[in-house]
């Protein structure tokens, strides 16, 4: 059961906690402090909080200036704003390898209520194309906290973190919530694999459980790291199962699904079905209803799995 604003609340609380433990952490916000919950940090550490107004380019360029002076910077905007910050991220923190973490909050279909112009569905695709930029899409509040804890310690270069729709909490495993470069194996399986990131992972697990009842053994991979991907895990899934269904709450063009196809085409060609927003604009509406309209609900994931299995046996 999804708790509204769970991811954002976790983001805000974790910012405060990290602000206490890391005196070099600075937060820059592009006019969304209350909705992003960066306001929690602002109230406790006003001297380390910078509001620049709704200007994603000024956000990142200012963050770069801070990072050039030995700060670790968390920069907050929405998913669509992150797209506008593309050039600044590329030619600043990425080109000069600076510890700037851009959070695209309210990303994917989380912004369904704000209409198609505000649904940043292309953010992962854009950020993935930038060299030396890590791209992470955590699935729930606990993983968001784990990603943030890693980011504040990482000074090797910039990161883009997309925070999306609250869809619930993915059942934990023994593995750490986040290991850079590694996909989390949420469910071992030999028949087929579902690789997902973000809120789509919750749906992926639901689909896998339902399919298990039908005798289909589904492997579920949490691809929180869209860049870099866990090559070994995906190659093994392609080798050991009938194929991979990718699920993401973003465009099918250029995101996780595309990244998986690019990887496997070169190393381990496999059947892949990409689920996501099918290269169309969204509409204003309830996020859950819009996800269903774009085929990101449990039944459609199950259908995609069955189609792949049929193709394999046909």
């Amino acid at each position, binding site marked *: 059961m999804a708790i509204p604003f769970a991811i954002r609340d976790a983001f805000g609380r974790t910012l405060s906690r990290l602000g206490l433990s890391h005196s070099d952490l600075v937060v820059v916000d592009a006019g969304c402090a209350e909705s992003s919950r960066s306001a929690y940090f602002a109230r406790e550490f006003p001297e380390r909080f910078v509001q620049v*107004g709704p200007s994603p*380019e000024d956000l990142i*360029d200012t963050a770069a*200036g*801070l990072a050039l002076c030995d*700060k670790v910077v968390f920069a907050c905007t929405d998913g669509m704003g992150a797209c506008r910050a593309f050039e600044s991220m590329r030619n600043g923190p990425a080109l*000069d390898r600076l510890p700037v973490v851009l959070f695209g909050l309210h990303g994917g279909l989380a912004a369904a209520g704000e209409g198609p112009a505000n649904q940043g569905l292309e953010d992962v695709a854009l950020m993935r194309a930038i060299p030396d930029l890590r791209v992470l899409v955590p699935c729930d509040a606990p993983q968001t906290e784990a990603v943030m804890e890693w980011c504040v310690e990482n000074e090797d270069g910039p990161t883009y973190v997309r925070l999306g729709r609250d869809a619930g909490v993915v059942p934990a495993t023994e593995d750490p919530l986040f290991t850079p470069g590694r996909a989390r194996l949420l469910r071992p399986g030999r028949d087929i694999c579902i690789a997902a990131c973000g809120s789509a992972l919750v749906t992926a697990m639901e689909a896998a459980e339902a399919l298990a009842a039908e005798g289909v053994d589904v492997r579920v991979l949490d691809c929180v790291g869209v860049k870099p991907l866990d090559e070994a895990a995906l190659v093994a899934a392609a080798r050991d199962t009938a194929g991979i269904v990718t699920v993401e709450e973003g465009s099918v063009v250029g995101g996780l699904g595309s990244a998986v196809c690019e990887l496997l085409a070169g190393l381990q060609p496999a059947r892949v079905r990409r689920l996501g927003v099918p290269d169309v604009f969204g509409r204003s509406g309830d996020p859950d209803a819009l996800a269903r309209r774009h085929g990101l609900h449990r039944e459609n994931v199950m259908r995609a799995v069955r189609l792949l299995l049929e193709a394999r046996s046909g």
Partner: protein
Amino acid sequence: METRNPQETQRLKAIALDLRRRMVDALTRASTSYPGDSLSAVEILTALYFHELRANARDPRWSERDRLVLGNRRLAPALYAVLEKAEFIEDVDLGSFGDLESPLESHPRRSLPGVEASIGRPGHALSLANGMALAARMDGKTHRCYALLGEEDLQVGSTWEAVLTAAHHGLGGVCAVVNANGFLADGATASILSLEPLEQKWRSFGWHCLVVNGHHLDDLLRALAVARNLQNRPSCVIARTVWGRGLSWLEGDAVRHARPLGDEDRERALQSLDLIHC
């Protein structure tokens, strides 16, 4: 106008002349267009690097140093000549500018000692300077943060976002120096996208703003000193300059002279430099 310190002025003038000679030699060997931008900024860079900026060429990352962020990539040849003369870099061939294996890339790279950030496009420099000034404030440091902007920077919206930000946060440690030489890649600024009245624009955004002849070293030094003493507001020095300053046949004529300088220009150029006085 009375000279502040005649000896200092003469010292800086000699530096500026030497920089132009080094640049002309390099520009005739390197394949770079728009030599006039670099030539227009020589006095500005001389005033900054050889008088104003607190820096240490032996320790380019000295934490207390003043920061200078270069916004206009076409000033790169001038910057490299300055960094060589100021001994931030050595054993480099200025004429290798833009070559595949040269550390002197077409726009400055942070990997080069004395360069703060790898800026290659307009619209970023002032925000970076703001970020640096904010960091200084957080750390209780007093170093200053300069952004050397071209007119292209002022035609890009993100620069004005930074102007708003600096004013809103009272960043007295920020000084924008605008090299206003009147030309862009496509021709005269006034005919492409006019910036005037420029001084009033900066003032209306809450900045302190001075306008000087960008080739008059005393005026530049005076303006930078005034800016340095302002604590609660950012400041802008608009330096009116001449494109191609120093090479008489280039001056103020970017449209006809956008091509790189060649070997055939070197003799004429060096003679022309011997004739100029600021």
